């Protein structure tokens, strides 16, 4: 990277457009810009940083716009800050232009828009190609890494005192420690996360489930075996049952005969019972009516005999002579007539008394006559003859029936005797029943086993699904373990790299510093750096190194040597292409070699507070540490430096304050 030019407008003091073309000639590679205090020397270095990286080290970041321009800005008006750098990197000319629009608001404030960066390069055919905005930052970082920029755009005041912090930060950024330590830090977290995502329980659970699965499969196989056996038993039982059924079918006729016999016996019993009833009915009917039956012809005869038509014979029915006696005794008739005074009535009554029993047979005969008539009349209703007749017929019928059935019984019994023994049939029936029960039992058992197998099947399916799920997790675990191993390996590598590079950079830095120190200082002293990055000067006394006291001048030389060493190491670092120090498995080492790309150093006030002797020594060394040197110095310092490097100067500029204003400077070529 060689800087061709920088043009500045509205940036701090540089109100007008200023264009500085730097010396790029190999022999005359020094550009000197002279300036007084507060004229804007530091602003030039800051313009470089702002253009390339969008940052400055000004305490008031918002004060980038030239104060005079800002003052003149009326509401709604805008002004643009613009810095443009032209540089050559790897034989390609780049133009980087950063601009920022500032506007005055109605309430008087100045508002800054977002800065805009354009990065373009000229291709071989002369066309201008623009880099995509998203890539600009990366391309600039590729040209000159931001981390290392501090050593190329150097603030001279830091020469005065090299602090331990400077050394540490130099070593860190030079070896990319920030990057590596961040990687280490992040890898630690990654490893932590990966370990947390490992699910060890799943492995154990998977093994347990597999055991359960094997057990279930074993149980299912056993159940299947049992089912087979049961089926065989069932077939056997069915066969037995069929045989017994056939046998029983043969004995069916016997049983039928038996049933018939039982029926006949029942009929006989019933008929016998009916016979008894019929007999008793006959007797009952006879007993009830025999008198009338027998007396009927006699009564008819008697009635013929006593058929005497006389009313005289007829006394008062149901009246007894004692009743009349009672009426006479009391002296009053039932009609109410006083008998004591009516003898005629008494006589009449006495006559009636004479007709009454026990004195008169006529009354009894009349009674007998009536009774016979009633009885004969009743007798007409009772058909004793028929009743007895029908009773007898019923008895006969039953007797015949019993006789018939007994005849049948005899025949059937004979048949049963011929067919076989009842006992055998019972035994056969028992066997048949047992076989039937066994079949029912076996069918039940078969159903239960089938159900059991079904349950085990679904259990096996579930277990398989669970194991599959767990297997996925186990696979995940395997992957995580591998990732973990890689993360651990990467972590170890970054740690090792950290230590290795730190050591390397420290050695490299110390060598550079010592070499440069020796070029400027001709004595026995040398620079050392301890583990804690403290820089000291030592001298050899006898065979041991001892620390020496330093004069102010010597300290300045030491510090400059350190800065120059840093710049050198940084330049080497910037020249390394691609990824540094990765122990690549493939032989792409060529990419890691140093390129011969030149680098500039832009130093702001490098000679402040250094005496003339050392200014000369520092100036001598400057063109050796960079291919292009841009010095921004005070004229009083340049007088001494000029003696050392005057002939290498290719361009001279001076910063002038316009009308002695602190807010308006211009850069002119001299």
């Amino acid at each position, binding site marked *: 990277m060689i800087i061709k030019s920088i043009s500045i407008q509205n940036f701090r003091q540089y109100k007008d457009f200023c264009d500085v073309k730097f010396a790029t000639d190999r022999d005359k590679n020094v550009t000197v810009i002279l300036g007084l205090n507060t004229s804007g020397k530091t602003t030039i270095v800051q313009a470089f940083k702002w253009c390339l990286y969008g940052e400055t080290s000004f305490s008031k970041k918002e004060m980038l716009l030239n104060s005079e321009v800002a003052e003149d800005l009326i509401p709604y008006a805008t002004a643009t800050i613009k810095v443009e750098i032209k540089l050559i990197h790897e034989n390609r000319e780049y133009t980087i232009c950063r601009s920022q629009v500032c506007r005055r608001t109605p309430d008087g404030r100045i508002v800054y828009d977002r800065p805009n960066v354009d990065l373009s390069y000229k291709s071989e055919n002369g066309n201008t190609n623009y880099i995509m905005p998203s890539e600009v*930052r*990366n391309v600039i*970082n590729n040209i000159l*890494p*931001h*981390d290392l920029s501090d050593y190329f755009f150097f603030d001279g005041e830091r020469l005065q005192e090299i602090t331990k912090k400077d050394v540490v930060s130099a070593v860190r950024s030079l070896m*990319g420690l*920030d*990057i*590596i330590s*961040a*990687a280490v830090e*992040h*890898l630690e*977290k*990654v490893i932590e*996360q*990966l370990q947390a995502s490992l699910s060890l329980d799943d492995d154990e659970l998977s093994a347990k489930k597999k055991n359960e699965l094997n057990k279930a499969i074993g149980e299912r196989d056993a159940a299947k075996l049992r089912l087979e056996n049961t089926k065989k038993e069932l077939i056997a039982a069915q066969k037995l049952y069929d045989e017994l059924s056939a046998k029983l079918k043969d004995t069916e006729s016997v049983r039928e005969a038996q049933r018939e016999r039982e029926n006949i016996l029942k009929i006989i019993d019933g008929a016998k019972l009916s016979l008894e009833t019929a007999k008793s009915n006959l007797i009952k009917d006879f007993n009830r009516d025999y008198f009338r039956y027998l007396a009927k012809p006699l009564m008819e005869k008697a009635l013929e005999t006593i058929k005497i038509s006389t009313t005289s014979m007829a006394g008062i029915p149901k009246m007894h002579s004692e009743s009349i006696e009672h009426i006479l005794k009391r002296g009053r008739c039932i009609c109410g007539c006083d008998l004591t005074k009516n003898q005629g009535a008494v006589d009449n009554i006495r006559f009636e008394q004479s007709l009454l029993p026990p004195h008169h047979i006529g009354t009894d005969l009349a009674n007998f006559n009536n009774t016979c008539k009633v009885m004969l009349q009743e007798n007409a209703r009772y058909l004793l003859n028929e009743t007895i007749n029908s009773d007898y017929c019923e008895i006969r019928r039953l007797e015949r029936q019993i006789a018939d059935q007994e005849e049948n019984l005899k025949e059937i019994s004979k048949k049963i005797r011929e067919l076989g023994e009842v006992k055998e049939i019972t035994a056969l029936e028992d066997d048949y029943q047992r076989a039937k029960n066994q079949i029912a039992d076996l069918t039940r058992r078969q159903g239960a086993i089938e159900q059991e197998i079904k349950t085990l099947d679904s259990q096996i399916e579930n277990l398989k699904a669970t194991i599959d799920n767990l297997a996925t997790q186990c696979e995940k675990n395997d*992957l995580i*373990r*591998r*990732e*973990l*191993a*890689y*993360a*651990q*390996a*990467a972590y170890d*590598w*970054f740690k090792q790299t950290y230590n290795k590079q730190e050591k390397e950079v420290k050695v490299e830095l110390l060598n550079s510093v010592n070499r440069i120190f020796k070029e400027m200082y001709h004595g026995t002293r040398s620079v050392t750096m301890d583990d804690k990055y403290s820089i000291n000067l030592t001298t050899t006394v006898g065979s041991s190194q001892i620390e020496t006291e330093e004069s102010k001048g010597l300290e300045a030389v030491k510090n400059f040597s350190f800065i120059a060493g840093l710049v050198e190491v940084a330049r080497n670092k910037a020249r390394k292409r691609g*990824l540094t120090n*990765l*122990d*690549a*498995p*493939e032989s792409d080492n060529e990419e890691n070699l140093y390129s011969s790309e030149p680098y500039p150093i832009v130093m702001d006030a490098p000679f402040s507070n250094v005496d003339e002797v050392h200014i000369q020594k520092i100036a001598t060394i400057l063109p050796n540490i960079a291919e292009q040197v841009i010095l921004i110095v005070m004229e009083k310092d340049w007088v001494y430096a000029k003696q050392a490097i005057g002939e290498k100067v290719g361009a001279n500029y001076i910063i002038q304050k316009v009308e002695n204003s602190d807010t308006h400077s211009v850069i002119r070529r001299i």
Partner: protein
Amino acid sequence: MTESKTELNSHVLYKIKYKIYNAERENHNTKILAKPDMVKKIKKIIDDQVREGDRL
């Protein structure tokens, strides 16, 4: 852990290192990405590379 470590593919490992280094450098240079994102990003780099290694 030590067993599987011996099986690490050096090419995969190199790619992981390279990508992490570049991701960190990009982060370091731009400071755009937040740190927790870097952890995720690195995890993804490792994951992707290991899977890619598996495919190979």
